């Protein structure tokens, strides 16, 4: 037995008009396959409901669910076989191998979200993962707002020299670089324009 557990992500699309109980019938089996081989579910979530780019089995919309888990390679076969069995309800499914870091990041994000839901009084009871939420991931953020700057911004007059000097010296120096920087960090729209003009 040289098989090592890997990290996998299964994305599957179900019919938009699928009933709750039918969906849970499909989903309830998935953890069993993973648990049967000492796997670990890291995230099991609804990803989105969106318009499909083309019709699949005459459906124009689909509800996407994502399942991230750590398991032996053989488990993916069980999961795909299971999803294939419901192929009238599950329009598409795909399992891909992912990096450990991506899996762990997703797990922490999911845990944080579920922790936030627990904290909220009106927590929606849909698909709370069985794993315990990890509070440690939340701590570094709360510890942040300590700014050791003792400067009082209103009282002290900032020397106008520095401001005046900096701005003109930077601008004519390398305007090309500045443009490139904005392009690089630009919003999707700007980059989309860039792509569009390439035909």
């Amino acid at each position, binding site marked *: 037995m040289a098989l090592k557990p890997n990290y996998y992500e299964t*994305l599957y699309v179900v019919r938009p008009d699928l009933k709750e109980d039918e969906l849970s019938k499909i989903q309830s089996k998935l953890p069993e396959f993973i648990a049967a081989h000492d796997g670990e579910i890291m995230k099991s979530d609804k990803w989105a409901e*969106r318009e499909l*780019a083309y019709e699949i089995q005459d459906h124009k919309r689909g509800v996407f669910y994502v399942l991230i888990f750590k398991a032996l390679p053989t488990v993916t076969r069980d999961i795909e076989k299971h999803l294939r069995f419901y192929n009238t309800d599950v329009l*598409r499914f*795909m399992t891909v191998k992912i990096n450990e870091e991506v899996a762990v990041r997703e797990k922490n994000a999911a845990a944080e979200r579920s922790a936030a839901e627990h904290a909220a009084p009106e927590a929606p009871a849909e698909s709370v993962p069985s794993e315990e939420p990890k509070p440690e991931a939340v701590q570094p953020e709360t510890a942040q707002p300590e700014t050791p700057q003792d400067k009082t911004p209103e009282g002290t007059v900032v020397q106008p020299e520095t401001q005046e000097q900096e701005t003109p010296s930077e601008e004519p120096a390398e305007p090309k670089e500045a443009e490139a920087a904005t392009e*690089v960090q630009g919003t*999707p729209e700007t*980059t989309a324009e860039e792509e569009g003009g*390439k035909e």
Partner: protein
Amino acid sequence: MESPRDRRYFAKKKICRFCTEPLEIDYKNVDLMSRFITDRKKIVPRRNSGLCAYHQRQLASAIKRTRYMGLLPYTVLH
């Protein structure tokens, strides 16, 4: 000294965006994937996308995954 001949072949130097930016190629990121397909829904070639060979390969397979999941069209004729 720049000769006219040099200028004729001048092209903006392309740097692979996935090498320089903290972007990840993820087939679920439909907005990102859709930036790398032409208006006929073909995958943008490397000469236009400006990506390095490694990331172009990653991107191409990611786009194909996105297509399979019904998130991007294969053609305009669906």
